[in-house]
């Protein structure tokens, strides 16, 4: 185990490479997912406020749902 962590004396370069890669990728993923959830929550709230809940079904059938 000790030998594995030492990486032939290059542990100080190998592990930080994997560490920063994992860190950056996890942070980007979490930030993206959170941003999606909060935007979806805002969208739902606005729809309720405007009383548009029922229109949602029509929207999926409408080919230009986004511009409607």
């Amino acid at each position: 185990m000790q030998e594995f962590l030492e990486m032939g004396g290059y542990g100080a370069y190998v592990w930080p490479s994997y560490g920063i890669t994992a860190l950056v990728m996890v942070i980007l993923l979490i930030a993206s997912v959170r941003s999606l959830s909060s935007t979806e929550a805002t969208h739902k709230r606005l729809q309720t406020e405007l009383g548009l809940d029922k229109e949602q079904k029509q929207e999926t059938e409408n080919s230009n749902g986004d511009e409607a």
Partner: protein
Amino acid sequence: MHRFANPTRFLRIAAAIQPWVIGITVILFGVGLYMSFFTSPPDYQQGETVRIMYVHVPAAWMGMFCYASLAIASAVSLIWKHPLADVAAKATAPTGAAFTFLSLVTGSLWGKPMWGTWWVWDARLTSMLILLFLYLGYMALQGAFDDRARGAKASAILALVGAVNLPIIKFSVTWWNSLHQGATVVTMDGPKMDASMLWPLLIMAFAFKGYYIWVLLVRMRQELTANKVRILRLKQAHGG
């Protein structure tokens, strides 16, 4: 093609394939990391530092792949005004920037023990740094206009002009003297690398690609929902 142009249909397809993308990505990372650490041998010249390759090279490949996607999506958005192309381009930029940043940092961590320096201003490293600046410029330009359409257009043009950097990166190790080693995987004579190293490298590369698609789907869904929110806000401002 236009079947996929419809954002509503895209959202449905995205929701359906996302669990598969996540599953495949996680499995590829599991297998790829296992092979990187346990089945692949140390290099006869570079020793254990060769394991940095399994994150460094996929990150660099994806940094370039994302930029190519960004440029193609920008062209489609400029020429055909495809409603999803702009969304896809915008959703790609942060991931591409992250991969390019990681290729520079892991390259630095590999260069120190092998070349004796964290950084040299050589063609490969410099052109990769320019790629990072292109991503940052693209993202900054997008937010620099009050008119979203103008920001999208300006950044799309920047993305296209910057694409000239891609062949420079690819051939930088051939055209100029470089500390960086030449191509070993994508060569005219096929890969010049032993299978025990090539397999973990390719599997990690596909894991990175799966991760990119995962984040892309999430970010595109976010962007499309944000567009809907903007429309609803306008409706609200006009009294419903």
